């Protein structure tokens, strides 16, 4: 994965997850549909998996460069930062997603 994309992939996944939850909840309530809690849980698991994938991609790039030094200094930094950003994003995704287990929908 390109290093600059990697750097913001965590927050982008968080933002997509957040938009999906808020937009989905609003739309579900508008049309009177049920099952928003399932959507929240599914989206949160999906976002978690995507974040894990992004983190693994950065980790692999860093391990590979430890052997071959194919990445430049700036790119290595981007991957290191991307790992940490993905971790913070995971906390935020989980924190937002967990609300669906305690708060009722459309009320």
């Amino acid at each position: 994965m390109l290093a600059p994309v990697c750097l913001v992939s965590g927050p982008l996944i968080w933002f997509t997850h957040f938009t999906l939850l808020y937009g989905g909840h609003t739309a579900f309530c508008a049309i009177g549909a049920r099952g928003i809690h399932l959507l929240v849980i599914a989206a949160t698991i999906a976002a978690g998996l995507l974040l894990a994938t992004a983190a693994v991609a950065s980790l692999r790039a860093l391990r590979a460069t430890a052997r071959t030094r194919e990445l430049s200094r700036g790119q290595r930094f981007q991957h290191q930062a991307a790992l940490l950003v993905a971790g913070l994003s995971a906390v935020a995704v989980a924190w937002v997603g967990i609300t669906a287990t305690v708060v009722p929908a459309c009320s």
Partner: protein
Amino acid sequence: MSATDQICKPSEGLPNDAPRPPGEREALLRIWAIPRGWRRLSAVNNMVVGPVYLGTAFLFFLMAGLLALLMRVQLAVGDNTFVGQDLYNQLFTMHGTTMMFLFAVPAIEALGMMLLPQMFAARDLPFPRLSAFAVWTYIIGGLVFFSTILYDLAPRGGWFMYPPLTLTEYSPGDSADFWLLGIGFIEISAIAGAVEIVIGILRTRPPGMSLDRMPILAWSMLIFAGMIIFAFPAVILATMMLEIERSFGWPFFSTAKGGDSLLWQHLFWFFGHPEVYIIFLPAAGMVSMIVPTMARTPLVGYRLIVVALIATGFFSFGLWVHHMFTTGIPALSLAFFSAASMAVAIPAGLQVFAWIATIAAGRERFRIATPSLFVLGFLFIFTIGGLTGVMVAVVPFDLQVHDSYFVVAHFHYVLIGGMVFPLLATVYYWAPMVSHRMLSERLGRSVFWLMFAGFHVAFFPMHIMGLMGMPRRVWTYPAGIGWDTLNTISTAGAFVLAAGVVIFLVDLALLSRRERAPANPWDAGTLEWLPADVYSTRSIPHVTSREPLWDQPNLVREVEDGRHYLPNAPTGTRETIVTGPVDAEPEYVLRLTGPGWNHVLAAVFTAACFLLLTVKLVVPAAVCGVLAIVACLAWAWQLDPGPEKGRVHIGAGLHLPSYATGPSSHAGLAMVVLMLVSASLYLAYVFSYLYLWTVSPQVWASGAPLLPDLGWPIGMTALLLVGWGAFSLARPALAWTGTLRHLTPLLSLVGALCLVAATVGEIASHWLAGLRPTDSAYGAMVYLGSVLAAQVMIAVLIMAGFTAARYFAGKLDLGRRLPFDSTATLARYGVGQSLAGLALIHAFPRLVG
């Protein structure tokens, strides 16, 4: 070791030999000379424009502060009649608006313009006239806007201007229009500044300054500018919609016709909450520069701070509804935003702990001087503001204190603590860099203690007032209900705070009388403390660490001796080195624009156009609009110098091109940033469309039968694709020989006309189908989509005409095609946006029935 380190290993010698040939420094002085007398208005050097920008922002701070004192006098005792209710409404509206739009964001951008080129030892930022344009529009527009308070014309709707209060029915006259048009176009100035900052940070760093060696202030400025690019378009769209509703009756916010006043709150706070972080993050960046210097040790947790900045920048976009907890939004949605509001405390906390750790890790005792006092004051005040922020992020608590003085206390702790204190630390810290003189330590300490004490006396009681039930924005209250004493204390505190500001002014006024300070009085490690002149540093250093002045002990002498990069002016014009965005390897030499008048005229006419519109003088406004476009075109005519200077030597055997075009050039990157702004604006529109559909689906149901026949969108799609194809063919046509080459301007014009025709056709299709924008929120949204498309397409048409003129003037060919590349890029974006718009307008209502 970075790629650039491999180009020039410091151990193997420096990029250039010494002594340098005679006359180099004189040539630099001549080329970078600042115009004198009244011609100084045409200057574009960052160290001229930046201080003017900062000075104007500070002037607005003083004036808005004065309004605050008037409010505090009014509230000092119950049943006071010092000012009337109507004037009080104007005072709080102008105070908030001025502090947020005319002081905070401009002050940060001004610091970016001043400090970034010095931190990068760049000769200037990449678009000096754009910076100057942004400054002049801001100064003219800001002063006219602020003066409305003197003529009883100031807006009265609060700094967030909520409808329905600000609709024509409840706010007749022009006062709300001054806010909508005045602030709307000042936001354009902020975006221009943000474009400059983004490209400056990504492309004008010195060789060797890879991303991990970038000063934290540059990181925070990058995030700040990125946030402006994504946040400001939402409020620009909102101001457009409210102004259109006030002027033409398109019912975006009128419930009776399917609009919703809450839409304004969504759009406003989608900008408004990130705005807090837009202000705070650069201030935190400044603190991250001052703390290591005062602690005499590198910043602890550099990576973590970068991560915190990125995360805060993103997370802040998920908090806007926490200003709307009491508006009846479903509980689960509130929970999402409440959770996000708490999550953002983690990266903010990371930074606080990193600063504390740096202070603790210092090799010597933390140096206590005026800048460090303001930093410590910031840490204390901002932490309290952050904690009350977590409190109001809790929905049940917010329901109790919403619109009370508790919230006033909270956001003043965040904004004054998080921005004003770091700003004053910055002024005391960096004053010697700008003026070569130090502000008084004795007066500085007085300023700090008066402001620190005055601030707490003024604002801490407001927490209690809020908990006692005192609402915001009330012009008076009955005496004897228990609020008098706290209000009197608060007013006294406000005057103590103001006394601190007055002493600061005295200190500034005495600055020119002080003795010259050493070049690096704080013994800091970053490049802005290198000796500099109007041309910035004598040569552009090769950087091998985050604190080059600490780790490269001979750097000052080497740079002064011209032994690093570009010690001369090989093209004979203003120039700087453009480096790669990640590893800062030298790529090409950018020839910069010098002083001029076109950007000044463009700013004057742009401001005049908007302000005349405010008072409904449509014809003079249109004339000024046309003159502004003419001035912009005259300005743009000088922007593509062409490759005739060839490659130039900058040192270390590097011969770089003196010209670049295409998507990877600084101009290409600027176009990408501009398209991100447009895309953000359009996404805000899509959100608004879908939001109003969820609120008033019955309006969409009644609107759907008015949808034009499917042949219309299919025809428009065909026109858009033909336009795309014309621009795609125009580029290779430049390589053709003979008269075939003339196809380039012809195809560009044909392509642009197709795009304009598609937009006109889209409007006509709805009109012929019987839909009117004043009928319903649905009709208004449909036509607004076309308005947004028309903005882009008309810009493409003007640029295509400009490209054709360049071609026939012999200034456009295969190797020199910057205007064409920019036009084609914008045209492709326009096609993409219009296709998305056609799908939304024609397919969505059919799909949802």
